[in-house]
Every structure is written in structure tokens, then in C-alpha cells.
């Protein structure tokens, strides 16, 4: 029988439907794997086996009664940035110490409705700020492919859990590449839906105009399956879009014959890792072999993406994180002399260095008349980046790029050079700025045997396009 470490959601549902495994058994097995492997990986911040078992038994009973649910009994790992009623939600930060969520995020409620079981909470860069999961108050997470390397970030715990056999599927969040890049680093599938496709209600905000919840999975089918559950309009999120949700799993087949796929020259630049370039170009060739019509496209403002992204993300984050002040929930410094002192000390001790750096950057770009020079310019550059994609998508159904300019890097390698770290987001942040969708699928390895990710970008609300390309490619290299 297939080990739980290798199961996809589709397989697990099949096993449970045929009565070969119960949800409770899956949870127990998985908890055993986590206890064993997580000493090394540290993919989880917390695991509540009892809570999960209770849900699993309910799911088993429901199945016995003949009830249906797309994820009935499926254990799901959740990035510790989504509110789950009655559970802590730390955002890998000390400042949320003691906080217990009194409500379910909309995505959690939707998964719950389909019978999902919530087993544990995955590690991440504090408040999703980072690309390596080295900025966590709960220790670093290691890449299961090579534990000397980072798993990527900020959803590094989710990627490591899925790739390392500690989860069948995990939820992450993607503000500038935080689902796709760790998926690429760890060798799993990571999907960032179009902005507005999935409700953000209950996702602790990092950069409100860029954040989206996305799944990390073992294969493309699972990504399609869970997207179908997560997606949809939510009255609690004014930015969620009221468009019908197709059954994405029914739109995977069909192949690439005659499909126009764009190759943006700006994403294959000098100085990028040769192994990554070769792996991605090989995947592009494969798509061509499958019948796709590969065309050149240009996204001329790509070089401004990182600057734009860091202005907008930091500005929004500086306001979003102002609420962590020690008054209503979470950590508080109790030695303060007055309110100002309480704020200063609470936030000094509650936040880690990367979060502080971005709060300072974001506060600065909005302060004392710098708004026009930074935020306003950033918003305008964003318009240009969005137009680049509109133009490109008028010629093709999807765009193929590397997910990141390099494979996973060594732990500690970039910690002291934040700017260098930031530049690693160059191929992913554009999708967030433009509000479009993107997926990363494994496409080979570097000479050091580290996974490489192929990123497929699609127009807003055309998730079916990128899933189909990803699925066709994945099936062809199986």
C-alpha cells in the first residue's frame, strides 16, 4: 500500500472511498511522519493531532453515512497565517503570542464544508515577509531535498511539508511569489490564483492589493481540485470577484496542440543560473513537442517589478501591521511607562528584523510628502506592468518562465543582504502586481540535484489555461 508520504489527495480520496484507509488512519500515519521528519525539517509550527483526529472521525462517520465532500477526510496543512477558529495563528511572529482566532478564514470554512481535516500549521517567514523561511520566530525550515538549503518562502513550511512527505497538500499565501517560489525550491506544485479569485478574508494581510491564498500540492490535479473548492466570491472580501467557478479538474485534459505559449525574453536574462535556464528551456521544448506554438513575447517593464513591488508591498504592510500594538490581542510588553512606551517596546520585542525593516521602508515611502515619489510612482509603474501582460496575453494563452532565477540557496547565504534576497522575486512578483494567475511545476534539477520550477502565467481568471499547460507538461514527463 502506498505510503502516506507519497499520496496525492486524489489517491487518498480513492483509498477512503474504497474503504482501504480511513481518515483517522491517514491522520495518525501523517502525525507519525511529522513527529519523525519534522525534527529535521521544522516545517510545522504546531500540530493538533487530537483536533485533527476528531475531525477525521467525523469525516469517516460522514463517509459511512454516504455523505460526499470533495476533500472529505483529507488532512490539510495550513500556513500559520490563516485564521482557524479556536486555534492559534502566529504568522511565525512573537507578536501574536497567545492569540486564539475567534473565526474561520473563508478558505478554511470552504475547505471545512468539503470535509477537509486540519492537522497542523506550517512555518513561514514572519508575516510572509521573506523568501527563505529563515525569518520565523519558530526557527528556520529546511529544504527536504537538501537540508543545508532553504525551502524558499515565505510558504516554506507548506512546501517542505508537501515535498517532505509531511502533508498531502498545504495552503500557502502568495504576495510576491511566496507559494510558487518555495514550490519551485522544494519540487512541488504551487498555484497563485488571480487576485480576487479566492477570498482573502481571514488571511492575515501582508500587502492587501497583492495577497492571494494558494495551494501547494504533489501534482497539478490536486491543485485544480482544491482551487475549485477555495475559489469564489465572498461577501466579506470586497476585492473578491463575482465570477462563476468552473470545475478545474474537468479542464485539465485537451493537450497543448495549437495552444500559443509566450516566452518573454526579459525572463531569460544574463546572470541567471545556467542550470535553471537549461531546465526551463528544456521544459519549453517539451511543450513545443506536445504541439504548443511557442512565440516570443515582451514584458518590457519587468526590470522595474522588484522596485515597484517593494514600494507597494512595504507601504501596505506598514499600515497592515500597525494593529499589532499589544492592546487587544497577542504579545504585550508589560514594563511600559505609558502608552507610547508600550507600543515601542511591544513592537520592538514582538517583531523580527525583516518585518521591522519593511515597516520602516513602508512607513518611509508614505511619510511626509514622499507619497508621490514612491507610492504614487509605484502604482503607476504597476499600471505599466499590467499593460505589458495585457499586450502579451493578446498574443498567447499563457506565458512560460522560470519561477525563480536560481534554485534553492544555502541557509544563511543571503541573510545579511536583504536587497539580494529581494531580487530573487523578480519573476514572480510581476504576477501579483498585474493580478494575474501563475503556477510553478517541477521541471528538473540543477547539477547539485536541487529542483527547478517552470512558471506558467495566465491572464486573470484564466486559471484553466495554466492548469492545462501544467498538467500536460507534468503528464508528459511522468
Amino acid at each position: 500500500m502506498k505510503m502516506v508520504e507519497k499520496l496525492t489527495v486524489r489517491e487518498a480520496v480513492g483509498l477512503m472511498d474504497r474503504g482501504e484507509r480511513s481518515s483517522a488512519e491517514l491522520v495518525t500515519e501523517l502525525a507519525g511522519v511529522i513527529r519523525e521528519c519534522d525534527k529535521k525539517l521544522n516545517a510545522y509550527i504546531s500540530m493538533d493531532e487530537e483536533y485533527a483526529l476528531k475531525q477525521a472521525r467525523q469525516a469517516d462517520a460522514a463517509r459511512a453515512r454516504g455523505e460526499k465532500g470533495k476533500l472529505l477526510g483529507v488532512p490539510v496543512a495550513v500556513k500559520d497565517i490563516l485564521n482557524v477558529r479556536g486555534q492559534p495563528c502566529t504568522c511565525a511572529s512573537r507578536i501574536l503570542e497567545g492569540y486564539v482566532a475567534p473565526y474561520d478564514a473563508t478558505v478554511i470554512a470552504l475547505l471545512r464544508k468539503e470535509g477537509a481535516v486540519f492537522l497542523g500549521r506550517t512555518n513561514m517567514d514572519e508575516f510572509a515577509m521573506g523568501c527563505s523561511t529563515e525569518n520565523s520566530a519558530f526557527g528556520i525550515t529546511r529544504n527536504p531535498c537538501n537540508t543545508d538549503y532553504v525551502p524558499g518562502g515565505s510558504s516554506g513550511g507548506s512546501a517542505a511539508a508537501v515535498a517532505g512527505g509531511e502533508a498531502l497538500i498545504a495552503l500557502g499565501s502568495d504576495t510576491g511569489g511566496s507559494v510558487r517560489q518555495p514550490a519551485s525550491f522544494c519540487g512541488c506544485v504551487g498555484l497563485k490564483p488571480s487576485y480576487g479569485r479566492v477570498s482573502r478574508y481571514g488571511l492575515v494581510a501582508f500587502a492587501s492589493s497583492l495577497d492571494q491564498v494558494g495551494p501547494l500540492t504533489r501534482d497539478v490535479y490536486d491543485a485544480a481540485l482544491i482551487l475549485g473548492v477555495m475559489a469564489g466570491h465572498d461577501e466579506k472580501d470586497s476585492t473578491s470577484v463575482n465570477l462563476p467557478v468552473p470545475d478545474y479538474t474537468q479542464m485539465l485534459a485537451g493537450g497543448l496542440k495549437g495552444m500559443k505559449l509566450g516566452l518573454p525574453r526579459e525572463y531569460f536574462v544574463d546572470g541567471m543560473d545556467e542550470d535553471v535556464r537549461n531546465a526551463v528551456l528544456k521544459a519549453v521544448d517539451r511543450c513545443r513537442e506536445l504541439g504548443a506554438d511557442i512565440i516570443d513575447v515582451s514584458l518590457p517593464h519587468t526590470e522595474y517589478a522588484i522596485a515597484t513591488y517593494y514600494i507597494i508591498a512595504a507601504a501596505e504592510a506598514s499600515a497592515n501591521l500597525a494593529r499589532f500594538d499589544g492592546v487587544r490581542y497577542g504579545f504585550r510588553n508589560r514594563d511600559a511607562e505609558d502608552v507610547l512606551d508600550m507600543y515601542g517596546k511591544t513592537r520592538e520585542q514582538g517583531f523580527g528584523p525583516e518585518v521591522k525593516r519593511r515597516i520602516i521602508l513602508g512607513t518611509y515611502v508614505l511619510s511626509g510628502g514622499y507619497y508621490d515619489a514612491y507610492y504614487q510612482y509605484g502604482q503607476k509603474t504597476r499600471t505599466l506592468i499590467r499593460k505589458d501582460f495585457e499586450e502579451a496575453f493578446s498574443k498567447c494563452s499563457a506565458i512560460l518562465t522560470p519561477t525563480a532565477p536560481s534554485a534553492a540557496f544555502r541557509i544563511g547565504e543571503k541573510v545579511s543582504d536583504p536587497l539580494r534576497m529581494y531580487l530573487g522575486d523578480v519573476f514572480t512578483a510581476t504576477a501579483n502586481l498585474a493580478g494575474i494567475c501563475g503556477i510553478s511545476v517541477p521541471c528538473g534539477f540543477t547539477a547539485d540535484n536541487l529542483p527547478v520550477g517552470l512558471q506558467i502565467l495566465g491572464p486573470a481568471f484564466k486559471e484553466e489555461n495554466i492548469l492545462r499547460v501544467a498538467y500536460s507538461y507534468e503528464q508528459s514527463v511522468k
Partner: protein
Amino acid sequence: MTKYLVTIGLETHVQLRTKSKMFCGCNTRYGADPNTQVCPVCLGYPGVLPVMNKEAISLTVLTGLMIGARIPSYSKFDRKSYFYPDMPKNYQISQYDKPLCEGGSVAIDVEGGEKQVGITRIHLEEDVGKNMDFSNCSGVDFNRAGVPLMEIVTDPAMASAEEAYAYLQELKLILQYVGVSDCNLEEGNIRCDVNCSVRPEGQKELGTKTELKNLNTFKGVFNALKYEIARQMDILESGGEIQMETRRWDADAEVTISMRSKEEAHDYRYFTEPDLMPVVLDPETVAEWKSRLPELPRKLRRRFEAQYNIPAYDAEVLTMDKAVADYFELAAKLSSNPKSVSNWVMTEMMRMLSENGLRIADVLITPQALADLVKLADSKVVNSNTAKEIFEVLFRNGGDPVKIVSEKGLGQISDIETLDGLVGQVIADNDKSVQDYRKGKTAAAKFLIGQVMRLSKGKANPQLVAELLEKKMKVE
């Protein structure tokens, strides 16, 4: 002493009369136990998102339309950042450069005529929580946090405390007319920030202004301004300089006190609220709303004077409350004597309302009933005391005054034949008094009229009785 010119601008915060908060479904009811009308959204919990209350948007736009503001087709919300314990997110969702309403004015009476107080803008934001002092700490209650708050900003257009007071009175009336706020000052429905400066006559540029914060009563605004204007003039008079600062009105000591803020100048870091989408109003909707607006109280006053021929004083009293004005007008239209209707509303109705702690919407006497009652009294079918008694019955139980009069036999006896009989009987029974009368004792006449009234159980028309008596005694 030099003559000084005063310049005043007001920022008035008005709590809108919505059932739920601006961005979440929490109750807005006043006076609940601390932190019992809160949810993750208005507490600024991690992960929550705001959603705009449609009613709050339309109430704000209606206010704008009432004062003749422009309603821009595009409006949006922004985040205004500053830290304070009563502010859940440490930013307030407000409107910076694209408010819901721009321009407009409120007319007030000033010496020698009317003055238009220009309105700069009206925008919508969320209210903050409340701090309470304990012996060595403070407590924060977030029930109020998130209640929709409309901010009405005037131009620096008022020249005296009296004008500011008149503006607030008129504004309150307008708000009540359009029904956007309960305007309950005790419950903090209206709060003002005041900007004030003085300059010597002849000086072109405005003087240095001070800001008076968080005044909760109109009287407070008036008194604070009186004090502040005098204080500034004194400083200038003695050659001093006004400090640009924020001051607090101490209502007990009746002085304004500098709030020495240790903080640097406000740096609110406004930017577009990414969690909310813009408000785009189409002109047809706005036009439709506009067509349903009530008359401005000021216009209504003028119209009442002209149309119903009532004195200015009456018109003013009747229009203090839109419901009263509406009631009056309904009754006046059904009556041939609007002045009499006005008297009844201003005296009996107001007295009964205040004695019973009721609003005019609560009373059972219909405008038709009041008009009928006025007719009964005017045509002497009932005397004035009886009319008042009937009014009380109608006030409490409703009904038709004509029916009440006939059922209870309350009608005045004006029938000459009946009265003639009564008068004859009294004359026959009171020979001595008749003699006295004929000798010129007028007191005797009063006695005799009283006897007729007694005999008729008070229903005889006293004027007719007097006439009949006089006639009869002269004849016999």
C-alpha cells in the same frame, strides 16, 4: 483698541443613523456594556476585511444634496495612519482626496440678513472606540469603533461665535430633516473641532489659527470660541504672537488649555484603502435621490409664513422638528384656520408631548381630528375648556371629535329656543337679582349667567346667554 476680524471654520463629526457599523454588521446602539457590540472586523483582528455599509454612503450623499454639494461620480476611501489605543487598526478608514461630497453651503441668519456658510467637503469615515480612566490605568471600549461618522468641513467662513452657533443649529436641523442622524448630543452623535484665528482689521492674510478639539455641545463651541477669540485678541493687543496649536476646552473652568503634544507634526501617511473598491455613483441615481429630498427647514419656514399666513415666530417653532412641521402642514391643509391650528400645535400639543415624554409620531390624534376640533371650537360648538378636554381624549385615544361631542353631549347649547327657556326659568326664579340688575348692579348679571350655565350643565353658549338675558330683562 484695534478692531479685529475673526475667522472660524468648523469640522463637524456626525454619527449616522444606521443599524449596523460602517464596515461590519455590529450593532450601533448606544449605551451597551463595554465591548459587547464588537466583532473581529471592528476590533481590527488579524485577517479581517471591511465591507462598506450602503446606507451610510447614501445618508452622506443625501446630506450633501441637502446643502447643495456636488456629488463627484468617483469617490474612494483611504487609510489615515496614527496610533491611539482607541483605534483598533491604528489607521482609520477615511476619505482623503476623493470625498463623497464637495462644496455646498448652509444659510444662517446674521445681523442684517442671511449669510451662506460655505462647505468645503463632506466625507465618510469610521468612529473610534472610547477610553475610560481608572485610578492608575485606562480601559478601552470598542463598541463605538466603526460606527459611521460623517465629517462636514466648512470653509473658514464664520466671523463670530454667534455665527458658528447659528450654523450648528441650522446644520442640526438639516440633518434631522433628512433623517441621517439622531443628532443626540448627549450620546455624542455630533462632535466638533473648531479652527479659529483673529487678525487686525486691514490685514489681508489670516492670523495664526488654533484648533479646539472635541467639543461635544453647541454651547461648548460657543463658549470656547468666545473665550478663545478674547484670548487671541488679548495676546495680539499686548504685542504677543499666537501659537499654532491644538487646545482643549475645559468646560468647568471655562478656559481653553494648550494640549502640549510631544509628538511631531501629524504625518498621517494617507494612501488608498486597498481593501475597498471605489464608489462610483451614476447621475441618475443621484438625481433620483435628490428628487426625494425634503425641503430645507429654512425654506419651509418661509413657505409656512406665506402659505398659511402665520407669524414668523410660529413658523420657526413649528419647523424645529420636521415631524411637527409635517403634522402641522397636514392639519393646516384640512383647516380653514391655519393660525388656529398653529396655536393648538404650539400650545396644547407641545405641552402634552413634553408632559408625556412623547414625540409627535406617537400621538393618536390625527391631523384631520385636530382640524375638526379647531372647527368645532372656532364655530363655538364647544367652548374652549371643553375643546381642551376633547383634545386630551384625542391625544390619548384618538377618535373623531365630532362624534365625541355628540356622543357625550358636549356640544354647546346655541339653540335660541332652548336657551330662551332656560333664561326664562332663571329670571322667574331669581326675582331679587333681576331687580338688582335693573337697578344697575352689573354683578347681578354675572350671577344670573352663572345660574343659566349651572342649569345647562355648563353647555350653554355663555355669550348667547348674556345677550338673551339682557334682552329679556330690558323687555320685561
